[in-house]
């Protein structure tokens, strides 16, 4: 009875809460077998089936859902409101003017999205219906993938893709491992090893597998691909055995089985709960600075629009106060209108004015900007200079929203390893108790035949030392996670070593480890393989030594070390530990610490990556205790990571230091050049690394981040131990500020090249102290500000000993400092992901440490050197292009609508449109859309080579300079000036006179058409004046769109269009063109409109030239003659094809 109640209670608590997520773990019954009675209540939880739904819509909800989603966008919603207003009330323009473009945009988008969704449906169907082999009642049966349920045991053969997230039970390989490639998940094409549960790996046939009686408890699905904790309870003889499950047991949906004949595995997450499906969710959107300015401008224009409408409405009623004006005998209202309440009439008038002027909000701008960004990003993809021959990769654009942000970067945060350096490790030396060993005669990583492999710099060691030396070599050979792959089983060729007859390769997620194991190989100890939990080593005497691997305490970036516990053939148990010096030395109790420390520091200054190796002999009792600690931590379902860390901390202590290794990581090609260019471009470069200070600063010197004359400021634990943080900070800021004060005088005397700049080095621990929120009230809160102050005056900052999250914190701190600078983070590894996501622009490097950074970045490039072109050329271009696009759009819509506003003063505020409906509709859609779109795609104000050669040009566009309020006001003022010229020009021409030699008069539509013609030409010519790069496409589009306007006008007025209920434009355009003064006034007005802009340009260029303009002019003078000839020859050669 009691059990029943508890079952009931659990049931109630589970179902009443409703949300499955409330239960933080789930229980899976393998093959849906009930657990033996007494152990636990059997509660069949409800899980979703294995249907993947990537499609957004169904046949039924497509129209409403799609409409809803489209109208959530501001632009569409704005148009919809205008359209509805036009439908409901009597407005000056027909609903078609906004309805048609809206309908067009909505339909095209809906068709596109519908088609894409149909494709997704098809893909989903293909996936959901593909056959899956399931073990049922001891037999393998075939099922559709979508019918797969949690708890089913699945049979997967080689090269098949896993249908859902599975726990590996057993594989065809004896050791219960299987190889998997996750290329489709995270892009890593290397093979990863997964392990079967130890107790089930022997079950290798379907009968055996179906006899497994076990339950799996695991956490509810979460999206992190690399995290999983669970526990399996196996009931053997009704005696439950609990085993831990980790991510090494979890096969993810989407990964493919490789090099393994078959596996049996049990489904634990299905359908939309698989990690792959959970990762579909898009990341948070980043917005660029340009987009923010755009929205600010939009608000201004909205205010202008509303105030225009209010002014006109108010004036209308003032003007109409005289009834003879309101309703002269020839223009009466209908009875219904007369009876309407004045407030309703006024409101209707207000709305009508809003509709009349609504074009001032450039709705088409959003569409154009989106197209520009999408199409423009192809130039990054297409760039041949950003293609890397070696990797065979080109740049990747994950989001095109941030193109122009690349031109605005002020702070660059870069990772060191793999980003500045190649992450191509080479073993340089090792040091055992102060004796240095250098493998010599290295040629492409292969040992030269006949060499005696060791060259000792130091005095030769005695026999006792020889033991220590061999222990060290064994330690390095054992303490790692390197895998050995035979050549024919590996797709990606990595590192080759010769081992007997067949070639094998070392593969590891850490290149350091591979370098170390290879280095040991050259020193005489060769790691052969791991077989049946035994590691095999070939020692100097060509004998195989076998060690049983008892535990692996894997590496993590917080602990910064890893350990293995092995039992050697003699039965002794050793713990070998390898890690960063800072994490090893405090745990060492004996060994020649001083000598090793000295060598480590020496190597670090050389820029080498050093690791220390230590060991500990474990007595059987100690080993028992270790086992106990570890198994308890591993079985925990909650907080397992923390418990493991605690256990590791207890185990890795009382070490005996053996020695240290040094591995070189060469700088990436042109890294120094790139950093120098970024500096010249006014960017501040920060290196954020987990490496230690000496190594990192050596790299910084090598990469010219610090130069010889850079004054280094240190803010490290070492200093803060001597002085209080407070004093150090104030000291530093005084140094910096004193110099800064002095420098302004120097720069004025023109010695700016000579000044010494500052470089700051800070380490993770100090940074934490600086960032810690104030405890002593006001005083410590200032540390952050003070620190930022110091940073601002340093051209380069090196942050070492950083944890991944700290990297993101730094980026965030700079991002939110009071200048709100634009930040860029670049990195290659998983530890850079957090900062890549935090920064305004995140760039991933296609490095050796997998694809995580690339997947989470906004842009990815093959090498660090490509950053130069990415920022200096592409970023610069995109910024120039987009800012002109934005300003021009606002400008052209002011010019468009302002005459219409002025016309209201001359038509009794009656909302009479100045232009014909067709012109209103097509102005933004076709007459003026293509030239600016093309400009925003291919404009080059300066050649790309010069941009690259002269990085200081980048400063010209810093701080969003082309979208400052002053330039926005200039553009708007220019727009209003042009509008006034156009309107009053036409007004005075029409003032009581005839235009033609036959004495006939023109009407209001001719008036509007005249203004409109001037408008289209002026606006297009204005863009032509701004174009610095006239390719044949520019000529084609600019002259083509003007021609299109003329042809359209001729056609529109040339025919009685049967579908129109008015023919007001009939022959208006032709009549206008038949009159001489119309031509003359069109020319006059266009010239008058463009005149001030040209004068302003010339005078500004002469009086206050920007660097860009100076270079433009200089280039022109120097290279005008030859370049013309060159261009001509190019064109002629092109023609001859």
């Amino acid at each position, binding site marked *: 009875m009691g059990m029943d109640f508890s079952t009931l209670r659990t049931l109630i608590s589970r179902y009443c809460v409703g949300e499955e997520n409330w239960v933080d773990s789930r229980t899976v019954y393998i093959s849906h077998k009930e657990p033996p009675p007494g152990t636990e209540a059997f509660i069949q939880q409800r899980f979703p089936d294995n249907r993947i739904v990537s499609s957004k819509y169904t046949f039924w909800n497509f129209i409403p859902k799609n409409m809803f989603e489209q109208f959530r966008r501001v632009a569409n919603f704005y148009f919809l409101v205008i359209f509805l207003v036009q439908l409901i009330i009597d407005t000056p323009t027909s609903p078609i003017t906004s309805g048609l473009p809206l309908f067009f945009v909505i339909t095209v988008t809906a068709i596109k999205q519908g088609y894409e969704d149909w494709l997704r449906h098809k893909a989903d169907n293909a996936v959901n219906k593909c056959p899956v082999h399931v073990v049922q009642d001891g037999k393998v049966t075939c099922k559709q993938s979508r019918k797969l349920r949690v708890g089913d045991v699945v049979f997967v053969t080689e090269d098949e893709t896993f249908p859902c997230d599975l726990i590996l039970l057993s594989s065809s390989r004896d050791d219960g491992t299987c190889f998997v490639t996750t290329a489709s998940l995270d892009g890593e094409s290397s093979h990863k090893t997964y392990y079967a549960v130890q107790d089930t790996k022997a079950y290798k046939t379907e009968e055996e597998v179906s006899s497994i009686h076990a339950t799996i408890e695991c956490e509810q699905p979460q999206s992190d691909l690399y995290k999983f904790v669970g526990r399996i309870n196996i009931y053997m003889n009704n005696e439950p055995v609990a085993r831990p499950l980790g991510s090494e047991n979890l096969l993810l949906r989407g990964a493919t089985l490789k090099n393994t004949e078959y596996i049996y595995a049990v489904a634990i997450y299905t359908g939309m709960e698989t990690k792959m499906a959970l990762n579909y969710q898009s990341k948070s959107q980043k917005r660029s600075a340009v987009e923010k300015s755009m929205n600010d401008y939009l608000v201004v224009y909205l205010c202008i629009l509303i105030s225009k409408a209010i002014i006109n409405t108010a004036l209308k009623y003032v003007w109409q106060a005289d009834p003879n004006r309101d309703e002269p005998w020839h223009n009466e209202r209908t009875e219904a209108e007369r009876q309407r309440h004045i407030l309703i009439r006024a409101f209707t008038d207000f709305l009508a004015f809003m509709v009349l002027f609504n074009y001032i909000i450039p709705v088409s701008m959003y569409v154009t900007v989106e197209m520009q960004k999408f199409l423009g990003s192809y130039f990054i993809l297409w760039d041949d200079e950003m*293609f890397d021959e070696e990797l065979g990769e080109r740049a990747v654009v994950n989001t095109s929203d941030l193109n122009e942000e690349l031109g605005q970067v002020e702070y660059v945060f870069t990772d060191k390893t793999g980003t500045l350096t190649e992450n191509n490790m080479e073993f340089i030396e090792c040091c055992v108790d102060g004796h240095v060993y250098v493998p010599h005669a290295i040629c492409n990583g292969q040992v030269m035949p006949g060499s005696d492999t060791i060259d000792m710099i130091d005095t030769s060691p005695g026999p006792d030392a020889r033991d220590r030396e061999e222990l060290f070599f064994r330690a390095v050979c054992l303490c790692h996670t390197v895998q050995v792959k035979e050549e024919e089983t590996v797709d990606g060729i990595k590192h080759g070593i010769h081992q007997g007859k067949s070639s094998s390769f070392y593969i590891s997620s850490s290149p350091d480890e591979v370098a170390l194991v290879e280095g040991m190989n050259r020193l005489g100890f060769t790691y052969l393989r791991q077989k049946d939990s035994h590691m095999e080593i070939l020692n100097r005497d060509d004998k195989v030594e076998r060690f049983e691997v008892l535990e692996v305490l894997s590496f993590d970036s917080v602990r910064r070390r890893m350990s293995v516990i092995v039992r050697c053939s003699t039965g002794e148990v050793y713990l070998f530990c390898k890690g960063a010096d800072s994490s090893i030395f405090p745990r060492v109790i004996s060994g020649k610490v001083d000598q090793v420390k000295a060598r480590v520091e020496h190597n670090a200054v050389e820029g080498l990556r050093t690791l220390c190796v230590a060991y500990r002999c474990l007595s059987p009792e100690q080993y028992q205790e270790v086992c106990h600690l570890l198994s308890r931590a591993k079985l925990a379902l909650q907080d397992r990571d923390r418990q493991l860390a605690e256990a590791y901390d207890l185990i890795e202590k009382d070490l005996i230091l053996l020695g240290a290794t040094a591995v070189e990581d060469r700088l990436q090609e042109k890294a120094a050049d790139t950093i120098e260019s970024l500096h010249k471009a006014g960017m501040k470069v920060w290196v954020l690394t987990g490496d230690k200070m000496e190594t990192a600063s050596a790299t910084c010197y090598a990469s010219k981040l610090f130069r010889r004359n850079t004054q280094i400021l240190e803010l490290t634990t070492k200093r803060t131990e001597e002085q209080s943080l407070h004093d150090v900070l104030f000291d530093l800021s005084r140094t910096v500020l004193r110099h800064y004060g002095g420098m302004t005088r120097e720069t004025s005397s023109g010695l700016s090249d000579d000044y010494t700049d500052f470089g700051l080095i800070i380490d993770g621990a100090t940074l934490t102290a600086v960032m810690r929120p104030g405890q002593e009230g006001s005083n410590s809160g200032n540390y952050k500000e003070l620190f930022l102050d110091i940073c601002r005056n340093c051209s380069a900052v090196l942050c070492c000993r950083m944890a991944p999250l700290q990297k993101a914190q730094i980026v965030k701190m700079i991002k939110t400092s009071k200048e709100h600078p634009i930040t860029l983070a670049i990195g290659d590894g998983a530890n850079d992901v957090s900062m890549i996501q935090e920064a305004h622009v995140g760039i991933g490097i296609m490095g050796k440490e997998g694809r995580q950074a690339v997947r989470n970045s906004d842009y990815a490039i093959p090498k660090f050197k490509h950053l130069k072109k990415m920022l200096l050329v592409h970023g610069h271009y995109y910024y120039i292009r987009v800012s002109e696009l934005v300003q021009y759009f606002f400008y052209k819509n002011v010019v468009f609508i302002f005459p219409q506003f002025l016309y209201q003063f001359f038509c009794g505020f009656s909302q009479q449109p100045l232009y014909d409906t067709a012109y209103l509709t097509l102005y933004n859609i076709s007459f003026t859309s293509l030239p600016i779109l093309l400009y925003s795609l291919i404009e080059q104000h300066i050649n*790309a080579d010069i941009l690259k050669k002269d990085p200081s040009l980048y400063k010209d566009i810093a701080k969003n300079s082309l979208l400052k309020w002053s330039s926005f006001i200039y553009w708007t003022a220019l727009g209003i000036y042009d509008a006034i010229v156009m309107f009053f020009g036409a007004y005075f021409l029409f003032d009581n*006179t005839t235009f033609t030699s036959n004495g*006939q008069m023109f009407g209001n539509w001719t008036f*509007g058409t005249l203004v409109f013609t001037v408008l289209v030409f002026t606006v297009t010519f204005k863009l032509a004046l701004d174009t*610095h790069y006239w390719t044949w496409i520019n000529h084609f589009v600019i002259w083509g769109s003007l021609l299109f306007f003329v042809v359209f006008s001729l056609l529109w007025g040339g025919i*009685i269009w049967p579908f129109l209920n008015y023919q007001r434009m009939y022959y208006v355009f032709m009549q206008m063109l038949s009159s001489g003064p119309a031509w003359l006034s069109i020319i006059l007005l266009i*010239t008058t409109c463009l005149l001030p802009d040209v004068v302003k340009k*010339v005078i500004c260029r*002469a009086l206050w030239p920007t660097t860009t303009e100076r270079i433009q002019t200089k280039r022109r003078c120097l290279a005008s003659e030859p370049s013309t000839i060159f261009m001509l020859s190019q064109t002629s050669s092109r023609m001859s094809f």
Partner: protein
Amino acid sequence: MVRIKKESPDRPDNTAFTQQRLPAWQPILSAGIVIPGFVLIGLAFIGVGVGLFITSRDIQVLEIDYTGTDQTSDCNKCTNPNTKNCVCTLSFNIDTLFKGPVFFYYGLTNYFQNHRRYGVSRDYKQLYGDLANFKDPSTDCAPYRLDSRNNPIVPCGSVANSLFNDTFKLYQIVNGQRNVVPFDGKGIAWWTDYNVKFKNPDVTPLQNAFNGTVKPLFWTKAVYELDFSDPSNNGFINQDFLVWMRRAALPNFRKLYRRIAEENYTNGLPAGNYSLEISYNYPVLSFNGRKKVVFSNVSWMGGKNDFLGIAYLVIGSLCVVMSVVMLIVYAKFKFPEDD
């Protein structure tokens, strides 16, 4: 350039377009181009401006207000809205020959033909001769769509309803004798309005098409009675009607009434005394409007318009002035291209 290296499948296309290296003309608005350009444009504009100004100065215009607000005016008697069929006479004299062809306009001020409510109030189909719209005029025409007894109005709408209905007769007084100056009313409207846009219904006699309809409320005669003498100037294609139906752009406007280019007046109006007989029907005082008649001749550039010439002169001189200013700036601040 042939690439010998092994091509990677992922390698981007190496074309001028994808690499942003299309051959291009890269002009810069530097002083070297702009200053001579401005001088040239300025001089050209001044030339055109002088030409326009002289042409415009030679055009003769004679404008006479006949609203009748002035007590001394003969038309003052007609300003009383109760006076029916009022005729008044204006006398004036011309000193020198008014060169022909002379165009005779009537002008209205403060008259908002460009008012939206006024402008939409018409039925294009009806005016195109569509009989369906005779019976059921477009709702746009309201409140001039149906009369009080719900008969459809043809032509409907406020524009048609408010057709200008003053008529003029011009006499030259030679030795006390009144000689009629012949008016030519052909071709005063747009050719396309007359031939394409407006059409009478295809019914003979025309009058039958209008059975069951009423004439606009303001009108004294129906649209088919506008010109009995000439069927090609009757109904919707009456030239005066067409001229009126083309709405003016601004509240002060002129519309062409007649041309004077026949018989003795082919060369224009000789010097002498003239008398204009006006049948004064059109009320404008209620909205403070004015009525006037204008005699004008035209040149190739149309009617008298000093603005265009002056504007050309001003902009032309501005161009020249600006080029001088830029030259001073150039000389004083030495453009970078100089070093």
